[in-house]
């Protein structure tokens, strides 16, 4: 675009000529697709056959650029993942930007380019959007909301209520990467091996899992805020069954463990942005594990636990020294503005 202005002004959200130019020259050209091109107040399309999935999420991560990603990539991946874990194939996204006056134009351009690249790679279209600007000091650089529509195939019905005793819990990779990447970057903690966010779109991994075990997958989640421990507790509570995991079987990068030791965090409660937790039948565990490990986002996949009859609604963990204890939901130690 022609870079007349180097920073975002209140005028960019006025609806007038500055707004128009921002939309046409930045957003429309980056996200270019036939549904967005008319630049109407809405995108018009024919619904695909079958059932639809619909979701929304807002992204306020601080800082907006971090190792392994940025707020734009996160906003696209996060909403794709919310669709994908329900078994939906993501199709269309909306993108709304709340920008703080004074945001350097090149930072906005980098975020938008990152969103466009992520959407293109993932095969989804950003088909509608909105831009608002708030006065300096009334926002923090940039907030993004995305909503997404996806198609749910056949009679697929993934739900924690489908979980049965004897099922197996599989995680698609190492836990806590995103949380530690944001935290160490934000606090300026330099590490020997820097940790990158795992931010990634998971719909192709989900597809591979469903193809490998069409009727064996009970429920899936992406463990974002609250981490693995919170997802497992939700599964246990919804199914009325117990989940038993072994600490030694949960993949965690050494650098993440090290940072957790120093900062007093537990990787099992840290946010992930590119990981999948799947509960599958015992018979399909092998096939699902193999499918995950053959996928670039699932190389470190591991079986980490089993579903048992009792104690109902609880998650138990066998610690590395061999004693068992309860693994509770996240309480109290959240990191603010992690996504």
């Amino acid at each position: 675009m022609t870079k007349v202005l180097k920073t975002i002004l209140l005028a960019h959200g006025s609806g007038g000529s500055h707004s128009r130019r921002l939309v046409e020259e930045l957003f429309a050209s980056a996200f270019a697709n036939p549904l967005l091109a008319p630049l109407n107040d809405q995108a018009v399309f024919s619904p695909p056959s079958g059932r639809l999935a619909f979701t929304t999420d807002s992204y306020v991560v601080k800082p907006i650029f971090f190792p392994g990603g940025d707020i734009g990539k996160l906003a696209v991946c996060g909403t794709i993942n919310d669709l994908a874990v329900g078994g939906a194939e993501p199709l269309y996204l909306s993108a709304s930007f709340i920008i703080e006056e004074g945001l350097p134009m090149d930072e906005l351009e980098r975020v938008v380019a990152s969103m466009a690249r992520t959407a293109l790679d993932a095969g989804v279209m950003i088909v509608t959007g909105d831009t608002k600007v708030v006065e300096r000091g009334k926002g923090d650089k940039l907030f993004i909301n995305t909503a997404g529509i996806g198609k749910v195939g056949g009679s697929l019905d993934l739900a924690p209520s489908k979980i049965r005793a004897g099922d197996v819990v599989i995680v698609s990779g190492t836990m806590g990467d995103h949380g530690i990447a944001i935290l160490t970057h934000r606090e300026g903690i330099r590490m020997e091996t820097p940790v990158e966010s795992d931010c990634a779109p998971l719909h192709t991994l989900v597809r591979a899992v469903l193809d490998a075990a069409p009727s064996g997958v009970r429920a899936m989640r992406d463990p974002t805020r609250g981490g693995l421990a919170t997802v497992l507790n939700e599964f246990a509570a919804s199914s009325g069954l117990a989940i038993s995991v072994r600490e030694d079987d949960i993949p965690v990068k050494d650098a993440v463990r090290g940072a957790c030791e120093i900062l007093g965090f537990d990787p099992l409660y840290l946010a992930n942005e590119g990981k999948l937790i799947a509960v599958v039948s015992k018979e399909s565990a092998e096939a699902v594990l193999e499918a995950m490990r053959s996928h670039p986002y699932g190389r470190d996949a591991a079986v980490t636990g089993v579903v048992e009859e009792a104690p109902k609604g609880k998650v138990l963990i066998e610690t590395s020294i061999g004693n068992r204890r309860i693994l509770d939901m996240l309480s109290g130690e959240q990191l603010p503005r992690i996504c």
Partner: protein
Amino acid sequence: MRYVDEFRKREEAQGLLRKIREISQREVSIMEICGTHTHSISKYGVREALPPNIRLISGPGCPVCVTSAADVNRLLDFSRSRRDVVMATFGDMMKVPGSASSLQEEKAGGGDIRVVYSPLGALDIAGEDPSREVVLLAVGFETTAPTVAATMLAARENGLRNLSVLSLHKLTPPAMRALMDAGEMDIDGFICPGHVTAIIGAGAYGFLASEYGSPCVVAGFEPIDAIMGIYMLVRQLEEGRKEIEIEYDRVVTWNGNLKAQEVMNRVFEPADSLWRGIGNIPGSGLRIRNEFSDMDAEKRFSIPPGEDAEPKGCKCGSVLKGLITPEACPLFAKACTPEFPIGPCMVSSEGTCAAFFKYRRAA
């Protein structure tokens, strides 16, 4: 991961637990003073793995928890009255409830309250904008005090004039003496804190053995350290010995870290201090020496004392003294949870109630 994995080995841990069961005959009550031990023992399920005749009692070793209600209210009042001042605090303090609010609520109400991971974080904040007054809320034991002192010395060296410190530090040995003098409960021996002792030296507990007949073992915080510490203490008790032993000998010495002590003593001097649940303990706090009074927030802003009112129904005081376990408090896991804490022991990750809530309920 080196220095960690070797202290979390299953076979070794289970082997030590077996040895404890073999030698343990007597009913004994052991107090782990330090909140980090309470956390580690709970996290690794050590309490449940011990024979029933060994009772572990959690002591007053969580710095946020022992900070008196009066001091909590004092800093909340200060935050309300001086919105222009930046308050730098460790994260654990944010949620501690005072009579009318918490720091987290004061922040939402417009206070500029920032979480730092080390005292040096406050130095950075002060350096960024020399026109803003920055007050570091210095809550902690002998582990924290030297780094706060070093931060103050660095501020002075760099000519920073906008940083001051509200010293709410507490000292460990005087509190242990106060617990023994109070005589409210039978403590047969102590597991002493590894990191505090790395600073003050194991010799600081000599009086417990010689005056009170209580054996002590200084232990590290990895699960095998804690289990080994318990084993060594049980062995002393079974053999009738009353000694100060060091399990955590890769870090702890008899005399401690003399350099850290020197820095701490240059800036601070012992003073009486009010502990939650225990009351005033002579010589158990640290006040800033006159030579550094320009960096003493208490004097610089003439911060008045706060109301000394415990939250209604809260039994943190009794928990801190080891008189009751958290489950005996009627508020525990009902009105008082980590999400909506009533007392400080439920707030801090080192707090006994938080550890019991997170790791022990219905396990």
